[in-house]
């Protein structure tokens, strides 16, 4: 049935180069994106994937290079409305939603043609799309009150609404549950089959291999390899991604420190915690974490995970019950940009976001502390005086993780600590958490990522609608 249609144009990038100060983020990238293909772009945090996508999306103007549709016109790089008019839609890694708006109002932003005249909220259009996707999203809900997984779906819906020839997704699966990922993949295949160019940034090789028709790998801003999805194998891709230094440095490989196994760092009984809207978010009869233990709490986002973490950490009021955390508590919140960092402050200052009783904070001490953590945790940062917002997502997360672990907490509460991180960074964070546990910390690992859950936890619990069970990944 597609025979009669003229074949849609392919998108060609030629010699795209982008510098940030002395850092060459993209170094002469040339890639072809073929219609009817899902094209995955892989690479480590900071390899230039998001920068490349922001160039294609028109959000960043490259220093040199061009992009054009063939046959067709040149893409106006550096002009978001121009690239959008050309039909390039982007789902960002970080949400571009207005939290105070309802879902349908956010979606309407993508479909509104002009700013005058009455506003028709496009219910029909999105209900149709939702039915097609098989997703359930409450169009009337206030967007900010939705769990991140649901907000991600809203972002994807927004991008799908305009039906342009190119759809870019920057790590869309990071916050989705397994069945949601399957849904999304089904949708992406349908879009591909309708002749769209689908560009996908992802971290998990298995996911990429399952869906991509073509795979390109970036390292340090250069295109190091391209291969068809059918021909790709994991070892080859890994060596492209990591380069020669395929050995991953990690702080692990330390002897186990004997710790008193019977010592609890967290005990909770019959606790009830309310969410932001006053709803009953957490109801747990019993929960304990011992030193040396990594207690995993798995489950789909939005089941009371954040409320539980905040209650344990002591920043959310417990309505009733007993909760006792012994010693120092370290908290790795789930959204680094909202709860973990002060984006407008410098990198070095972000290492100082902690409780501390020292009165005088000398700049030399702050700088030395930042430098030593950057070295120890292998954080890619050019200049510690730059805003922390200038770091890539993975390196931002490393700032949070290193800051928390460096405080030598007795209890670590981590919520989705590797969300959006590439596998070497994930490995690094996992090893660091394991090491902390070996050295005697108790860890409460709250995660929606099954791989992380299986790999890291030493004890397995599940959360569903605020209740903790000891079996089943409850949907």
């Amino acid at each position, binding site marked *: 049935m597609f025979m009669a249609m003229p074949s849609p144009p392919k998108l060609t990038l030629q010699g795209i180069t982008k510098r940030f100060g002395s850092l060459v983020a993209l170094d002469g990238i040339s890639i072809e994106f073929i219609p009817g293909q899902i094209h995955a772009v892989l690479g480590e945090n900071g390899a230039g994937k998001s920068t490349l996508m922001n160039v294609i999306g028109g959000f960043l103007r490259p220093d040199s290079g061009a992009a054009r549709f063939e046959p067709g016109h040149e893409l106006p790089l550096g002009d978001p409305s121009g690239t959008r008019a050309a039909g390039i839609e982007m789902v960002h890694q970080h949400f571009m939603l207005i939290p105070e708006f309802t879902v349908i109002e956010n979606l309407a932003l993508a479909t509104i043609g002009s700013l005058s005249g009455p506003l028709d909220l496009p219910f029909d259009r999105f209900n149709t799309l939702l039915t097609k996707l098989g997703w359930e999203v409450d169009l009337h809900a206030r967007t900010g009150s939705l769990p991140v997984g649901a907000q991600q779906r809203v972002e994807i819906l927004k991008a799908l609404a305009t039906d342009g020839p190119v759809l870019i997704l920057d790590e869309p699966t990071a916050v989705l549950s397994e069945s949601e990922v399957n849904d999304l993949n089904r949708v992406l295949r349908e879009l591909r089959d309708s002749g769209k160019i689908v560009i996908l940034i992802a971290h998990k090789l298995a996911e990429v291999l399952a869906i991509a028709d073509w795979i390109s790998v970036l390292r340090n801003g250069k295109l190091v390899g391209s291969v068809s999805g059918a021909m790709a194998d994991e070892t080859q891709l890994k060596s492209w991604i990591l380069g020669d230094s395929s050995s991953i440095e990690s702080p692990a490989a330390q002897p186990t420190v004997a710790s008193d196994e019977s010592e609890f760092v967290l005990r909770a009984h019959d606790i009830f915690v309310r969410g932001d809207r006053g709803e009953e978010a957490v109801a747990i009869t019993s929960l304990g974490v011992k030193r040396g233990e990594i207690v995993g709490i798995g489950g789909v986002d939005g089941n009371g995970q954040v409320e539980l973490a905040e209650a344990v950490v002591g920043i959310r009021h417990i309505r009733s019950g007993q909760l006792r955390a012994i010693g120092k508590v370290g908290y790795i919140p789930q959204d680094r940009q909202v709860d973990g*960092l002060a984006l407008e402050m410098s990198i070095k200052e972000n290492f100082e976001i*902690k409780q501390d009783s020292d009165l005088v904070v000398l700049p030399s001490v702050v700088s030395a502390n930042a430098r030593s953590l950057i070295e120890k945790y292998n954080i890619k940062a050019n200049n510690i005086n730059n805003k922390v917002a200038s770091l890539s997502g993975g390196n931002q997360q490393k700032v949070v993780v290193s800051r928390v672990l460096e405080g030598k907490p007795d209890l670590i509460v981590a919520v989705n600590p590797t969300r959006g991180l590439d596998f070497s960074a994930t490995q690094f964070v996992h090893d660091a958490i394991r090491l902390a546990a070996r050295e005697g910390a108790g860890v409460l690992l709250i995660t929606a990522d099954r791989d992380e859950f299986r790999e890291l936890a030493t004890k397995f619990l599940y959360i569903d609608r605020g209740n903790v069970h000891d079996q089943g990944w409850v949907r």
Partner: protein
Amino acid sequence: MGQVKLAIALIIVIALALLGFGLSPAEGISTIVSGAFGGEVGWGRTLVNMAPLLLTGLGITVAWKAGMYNIGGEGQYITGGLLGAAIARTQFGGPWAILLATAIGGALCGALAGWLQVKRGVHVAISTILLNFIALQALAWAVTGPLQAPGTTASQTEELAPPQMLTRFSSRTDLHMGVLLAVVAAIMIWGYLNFTRPGFQLRLTGENPRAARAARLNADRIRLQAMALSGALCGLAGGVQFAGVSGVIDTGFNQQWGFLGIPVALLGGLNALGVIVSSFLFGGLMAGTQTLSRTAPGGDLLIFVVQGAAVLAFLFFQPKREPTHA
């Protein structure tokens, strides 16, 4: 380069404002400059005007850095002054006791607004504006009631005795100890914000209160403290005017010092050292326009028009803030 452009723009805008009042720009500007920097008298006027501007500018800086948009410098200035005047009537009424009282008076007013914000969610910009109205009425009531000078019908407090006044450096000008105090305060606030843990936590709370909270810092307490400190500085501004210059408090005591602290703080880039510079420039502008208004038509109105035009020019031409990275 940017500074040169800014200075030229500033002169043009002031010239236009002067033309609007039918004055010769050249003569007007030269009167302003000689009024501000002409000899000991001019410098004295400039520095005396600078002191309250510096203190209220610092007060605004501290609050805004903590994300508390204090618009109530005026009210805090007044409540500070009134508590100072109350202490002045007692046997403890030396100049330093008066200054301490004014700081406490302002701190209480600021802390009330801070408390309403953190406990009840009343936006501090709203509550401080309302508290300004209340403070103005309280001023009118106090100087005709409990604090009125005994045995007179004038709406003012009893004049401070010479030993109650801050030390003056010269008999020819009003230049007093409060000016030095304000500069010392600025250096201390600069050190506090940039080189101490509580100062860092204050700035962090202003940048991202959620990150402060997740790091288990008490963001509410930090904001409340910032408002108290902000109020104390604005109250102290009232103190240096009272014990340094006027010696009495009447219904015209406030003189917009609290409001002027906002543009001063903004021109100073919300940086305590920058506020020293901006309050100095502003003090000079005030001294110059005060001199001009004695001879020119328009009087006090001229002062405000020229100052307003200058602030707008400053804000318009100041280096554009770096856009944030996506």
